């Protein structure tokens, strides 16, 4: 049933163009109206290809009436001529799906093209950009990786999945930090998204020893598909690790899954924790003697980010959780499992996960909650105003983000936890000093 959605925090499935763009030298081709293409390309920055040069069939009324397959054919053919890409992915919008354009058939005509061309049906009415991200990765597996010649598995090679490119402002730094953590314990990380990784890393995906999914739900169907297609086992680790406690837990879990001996891993952990707690200790006066500091918090974010921040704040930093608001319209089948993740903090501390996409409804609930002092709200820019009304502390962790510029920083890992505290207490200082 139609309803008004206040302050949505996700885009439509066509937003999966950002996932394509995040693969170096991969080119999204929109089969949609120019408005849709412009809208979903707007915030993903530039890269190998500027979003302004993304090919689009720019369908208009004539294509709606007569079908837009001819125009798509033309755009694909011309894109191949003028864009030096390694991989092209056709993404369909609502209108072309409603009028029934057969993109599978049109893309099929380019089977013999010099570069691989894939197709993904991404009408906005079918799902969110998070689901669109999964569909793009599924398409990469089914339509591209499955066609490559079979190769031998590479010992120690680990594909890392989880962060959703561009829509999550910290995605690129998060991937880098996950890579660093995995590399430190002696494994070889393989990520397809981000700077200069591209098709070479993509080609290595079937050769990995295992897939590591660091996300509560986005990407689960992809690693399951990889297991089905290439027999690659996967470790589903729901928490994006932030801070010492969670990073150490993460390293132990990955090492155990990879069958690595625990001793060297424990040495690495000890070294990191020593450094981490040195910084915590020397700044303890900042954290605990500040009378404006919060005791209780709520996150308002994706399940991915909310779980990461909540685990850090409870298990590492010692705050108490209030309700945790999950905003990305999580598919029904994942909800119970995600709710359970929020009941598994240390010391039997539990939080209630509230799946809510409507900003107004979230804010009305936040107003009713008891925070034992100034609340800490970790959310998107939409939460800034409500936090101010409640005289609380605010940290921006989620889209829409227009609060600060993130070039490559991350809250993941040991240093990521410290970075989170820097940002959090910078906010506290700026509010009260």
């Amino acid at each position, binding site marked *: 049933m139609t309803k008004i959605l206040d302050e949505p925090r996700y885009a439509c499935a066509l937003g999966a163009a950002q996932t394509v763009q995040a693969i170096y030298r991969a080119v999204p081709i929109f089969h949609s109206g120019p408005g849709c293409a412009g809208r979903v390309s707007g915030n993903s920055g530039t890269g190998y290809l500027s979003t302004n040069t993304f090919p689009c069939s720019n369908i208009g*009324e*004539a*294509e709606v*009436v*007569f079908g837009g397959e001819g125009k798509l054919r033309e755009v694909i053919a011309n894109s191949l001529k003028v864009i030096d890409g390694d991989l092209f992915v056709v993404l369909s919008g609502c209108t072309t799906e*409603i009028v*029934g354009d057969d993109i599978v058939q049109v893309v099929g005509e380019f089977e013999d093209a010099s570069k691989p061309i894939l197709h993904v049906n991404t009408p906005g009415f079918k799902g969110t950009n998070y689901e669109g991200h999964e569909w793009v990765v599924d398409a990469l597996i089914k339509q591209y990786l499955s066609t490559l010649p079979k190769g031998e598995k590479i010992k120690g090679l680990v594909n890392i999945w989880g962060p959703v490119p561009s829509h999550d402002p910290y995605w690129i730094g998060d991937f880098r930090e996950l890579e660093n953590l995995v590399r430190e314990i002696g494994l070889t990380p393989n990520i397809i998204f981000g700077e200069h990784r591209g098709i070479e890393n993509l080609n290595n995906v079937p050769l990995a020893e295992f897939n590591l999914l660091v996300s509560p739900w986005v990407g689960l169907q992809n690693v399951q598909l990889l297991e089905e297609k290439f027999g690659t086992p996967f470790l589903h680790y729901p928490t994006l690790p932030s801070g010492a406690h969670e990073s150490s837990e993460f390293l132990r879990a990955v090492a155990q899954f990879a069958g690595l001996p625990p001793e060297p891993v424990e040495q690495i952990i000890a070294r990191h924790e020593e450094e981490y707690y040195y910084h915590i200790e020397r700044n303890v006066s900042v954290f605990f003697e500040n009378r404006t500091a919060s005791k209780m918090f709520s996150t308002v974010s994706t399940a991915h980010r909310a779980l990461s921040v909540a685990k850090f704040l409870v298990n590492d930093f010692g705050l108490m959780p209030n309700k945790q608001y999950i905003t990305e319209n999580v598919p029904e089948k994942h909800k119970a499992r995600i709710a359970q993740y929020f009941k598994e903090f240390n010391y039997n501390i539990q939080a209630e996960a509230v799946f809510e996409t409507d900003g107004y409804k979230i804010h009305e609930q936040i107003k009713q909650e008891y925070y034992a002092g100034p609340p800490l709200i970790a959310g998107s820019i939409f939460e800034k105003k409500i936090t101010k009304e409640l005289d609380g502390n605010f940290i921006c962790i989620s889209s829409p983000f227009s609060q600060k510029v993130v070039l490559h920083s991350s809250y993941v890992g040991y240093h990521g936890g410290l970075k989170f505290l820097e940002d959090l207490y910078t906010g506290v200082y700026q509010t009260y000093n």
Partner: protein
Amino acid sequence: MAKEIKKIAIYGKGGIGKSTTTSNISAALVEAGYKVLQFGCDPKSDSTNTLRGGKYIPTVLDLLRQNPNVDAHDAIFQGFQGVYCVEAGGPAPGVGCAGRGIITAVELLKQQHIFEELDLDFVIFDVLGDVVCGGFAVPVREGIAEHVFTVSSSDFMSVYASNNLMKGIKKYSNQGGALFGGIIANSINSDYQKSIIDDFVDKTGTKVIEYVPRSITVTQAELSGRTTIEAAPNTPQADIYRSLARKIAAHTESRVPTPLEIDALREWSANWADQLLAIETNEVRGERAGI
């Protein structure tokens, strides 16, 4: 002051005789001295064929396909006694959106004020069967037509299509949409067929405008690429079409219909199935009795 143009839409299930009936109404109206434009809103684009000696004409969408800036005059052709003929046309079967095509074609003529310019008395839209999507409801909404008629036989699927159309009309009725004029009962050759249609209009708060019997004259005329009015002007069938056209010309008040909900419609048809069975059984008994 410009004269009032009477805008009429005629719907009906595919193959029920909708275009035949519409073309005969148009022919009868021009014969009576009115200026008439018949607008075929069916991707098959054969609505006006019998007004033009069985010949197809380029459709609005054919022209739009070649040139986005179409002069609507290029899509207007004259036929029997000067009747104006337009075909909306449509995409190739299986591609694009025929519904949007109809919207586009109707809007084009509206934007270019063709109806006013031609000083018409009647515009008659001949629209494809069921109101399957918004495009086929265009003549019903936005004040494009004022009165809607449906051509229906006594067959259940045809009645079903009429009921669907009524639903569409009811939906748009409070937004300035067209209202329902009545049913043109087609292929009515027996009492029970008449009873079925009479019962249906009774249940839906509408009326029958005319009973049109099935006639070989119509088929002969069609095969010669003409309307009955043109090919067999002095037949009883032509007179029935003339009578229908007169009634439509005189028709002023349409209503909001009360279509049956799907369960009620099924129950209604099941009841009629029982009655027909009884009629059939009686006939058999009667024949036996006569032996």
